């Protein structure tokens, strides 16, 4: 059967032929190309990481690399510069933002710092950024106190929106600011400001504004005089009073109250002494009739 002197046979054996075909089967190829490397890598990594010490060492090494990048001098913040705040406010800011300089800028949460700073009462707005050169710059817009508000608890300063600025020891600390009082006064600071602006001619005599019943204002003058302003349009009512006062020198006289609550019927109350003297005069002129 087999001829003499056969040449070498290039044909693959049945086994190698079958193995090659099996290896070319799509599923097997996928398994060999993706499954086996994945399994090997996964196995090696899990075997290595099975030890607690190695895991910690690995984490430490990663951490060290991260830190070495983060703590490069380019990324370090060395100081905090606070602009636009007074001494006490910047003191407060440094208190509420406790940072150990130098600190890496990766560790700074600027949004949180800004929220903290804005959370301070005297701060109206703030912007926080890192300036080149490693300076954490906090630009603060302070609340400007416009009013002094006297409550049962103490004396506060309010800004133009009615927001609390700070507490005062005594009214005399800020004699330049007008005084308001009464519950709910801080909610109508704008109106109070308007009224006070309208009361500019009486500036020397104005003691303050009182919020009555949480709905309307009383303008309190010295000599225990009061101007009761209506709920609506208090400024116009005050202007009417001022006009009358200009014409008849009403407020110079011995008047206790000017009641403007009803617009159609402004009412005056005289002081007790004036009333008595008026009675006397009337008795004299009418002869006690």
């Amino acid at each position, binding site marked *: 059967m087999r001829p003499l002197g056969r040449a070498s*046979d*290039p*044909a693959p054996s049945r086994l190698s*032929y079958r193995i*090659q*075909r099996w290896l*070319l089967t799509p599923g097997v190829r996928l398994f060999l190309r993706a499954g086996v490397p994945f399994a090997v890598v996964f196995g090696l990594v899990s075997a290595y990481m099975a030890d607690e010490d190695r895991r910690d060492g690995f984490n430490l090494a990663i951490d060290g690399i991260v830190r070495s990048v983060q703590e490069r001098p380019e990324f370090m913040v060395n100081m905090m510069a606070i602009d636009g705040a007074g001494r006490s406010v910047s003191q407060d800011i440094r208190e509420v933002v406790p940072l150990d300089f130098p600190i890496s800028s990766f560790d700074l949460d600027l949004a949180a710092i800004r929220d903290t700073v804005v959370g301070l009462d005297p701060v109206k707005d703030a912007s926080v950024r890192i300036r080149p050169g490693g300076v954490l710059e906090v630009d603060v817009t302070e609340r400007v106190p416009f009013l002094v508000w006297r409550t049962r608890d103490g004396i506060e300063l309010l800004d133009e929106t009615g927001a609390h600025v700070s507490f005062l020891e005594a009214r005399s600390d800020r004699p330049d600011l007008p005084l308001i009082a009464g519950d709910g006064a801080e909610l109508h600071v704008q109106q109070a400001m308007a009224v006070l602006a309208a009361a500019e001619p009486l500036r020397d005599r104005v003691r303050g504004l009182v919020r009555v019943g949480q709905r309307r204002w009383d303008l309190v003058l010295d000599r225990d005089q009061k101007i009761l302003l209506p709920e609506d349009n208090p400024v116009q009512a005050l202007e009417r009073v001022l006009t009358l006062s200009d014409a008849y020198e009403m407020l110079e006289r011995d008047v206790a109250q000017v009641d403007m609550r009803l617009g159609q019927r402004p009412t005056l109350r005289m002081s007790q002494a004036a009333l008595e003297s008026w009675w006397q005069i009337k008795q004299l002129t009418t002869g006690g009739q």
Partner: protein
Amino acid sequence: MMADLYQAQRAMRQMRKQALQRGVVAILDVGSSKTACLVLRFDGSTPSGEDGEIGSLAGQSGFRVVGAATTRSRGVQFGEITAMQETERAIRTAVQAAQKMANVRVDHVIASFSGARPRSYGLDAQIETNGQTVSEQDIARVLAACEVPEYGAGREVLHAQPVNFALDHRSGLSDPRGQIGQSLTVDMHMLTVEAAAIQNLVHCVKRCDLELAGIASSAYVAGISAMVEDEQELGAACVDMGGGSTGVSIFMKKHMIYADSVRMGGDHVTGDISMGLGVPMATAERIKTFYGGVHATGIDDRDMIEIGGETGDWELDRRTVSRAELIGIMRPRVEEILEEVRARLDAAGFEYLPSQQIVLTGGASQIPGLDLLASRILGQQVRLGRPLRVHGLPQAVTGPAFASAVGLALFAAHPQDEWWDFEMPVDSYPARSLRRAVRWFRENW
């Protein structure tokens, strides 16, 4: 008996559809001197036609050769398998190398072989159509009505292709479906080969863990790839000069109408040289390919060829032969082959065709000067054909020796309608067929 044929061929066609769906199919040309394997990848980008059942598996035309390999075949003589083990090893070698190149596993293979004494039959039949228009059923009926000749025991039908339809008095219809007429006539070409050759091939392919998805005659597929379109249309003969056998196929109107093979080829020329010069076959093959020719000129007398040897005898190992002597050995054998081809063409009535074009292809057609010799024997209109350039074909397999491999690839992509692509007519089903009951049910309800 026809039902068996239907079953076997339809099973193969089914397999081919599967392969095309999977997108990868191997082409195997089992020749006498070489076994070639191409791996085709079908992209299947174009959608299939409306009649997916029959037809040329439309839409699966776009393919690309992704792997190609050739190996020497040892167990094939005259285009027939003579040593199963050797052929199996050759197929394994070729398939493995092609798979490796393509980097994909192939399970389906379409094979061709050249020998096995093909014999052509022309069949015809006529029926009356029952309806107004010709339906699919009518075509099935007319195909079934063909009188199958007694082609002998131990032979198998390899191709049975309807070549021509005629409706009433109009002939030359390629597709009569939907046309109106009374009597439908079909001309069919049937090619039978020896069953043993097919069985051997099937067995070899199966031993390689592959599924056979189609078989074709290599004379037919060589004609598909080597002839240009107008030659196929107007009528031409393709002579595929292989190693062990020379295939002859005649095409007309893009259908094969005749095929035959001559049991001689390039190996016989090599054998003559080997015997005439007293050298081993391998040396003879080398001398033939380097110095061979069929026309001797004056200078060939002085062109001395070292034929060598390895005996150690100085006299014997330093032999030389003139090129004229070599040509003197080769020419009679080539002439004999061509004479034989001439005889086959004459027997087929080739001279009555309107066009007398002859295309020479195959490995042995590369002998220098063959076209001059062939035109002297076969007629004036002879040209040398190379296979069509298909997508992705490596340079090494573009030579004429690969005409049948490339043709088989084209055949896999565009199979012609065969008899078994049409539904079997109702009345020729076996009585107990379930499908008949289903069909009856569908038609009556």
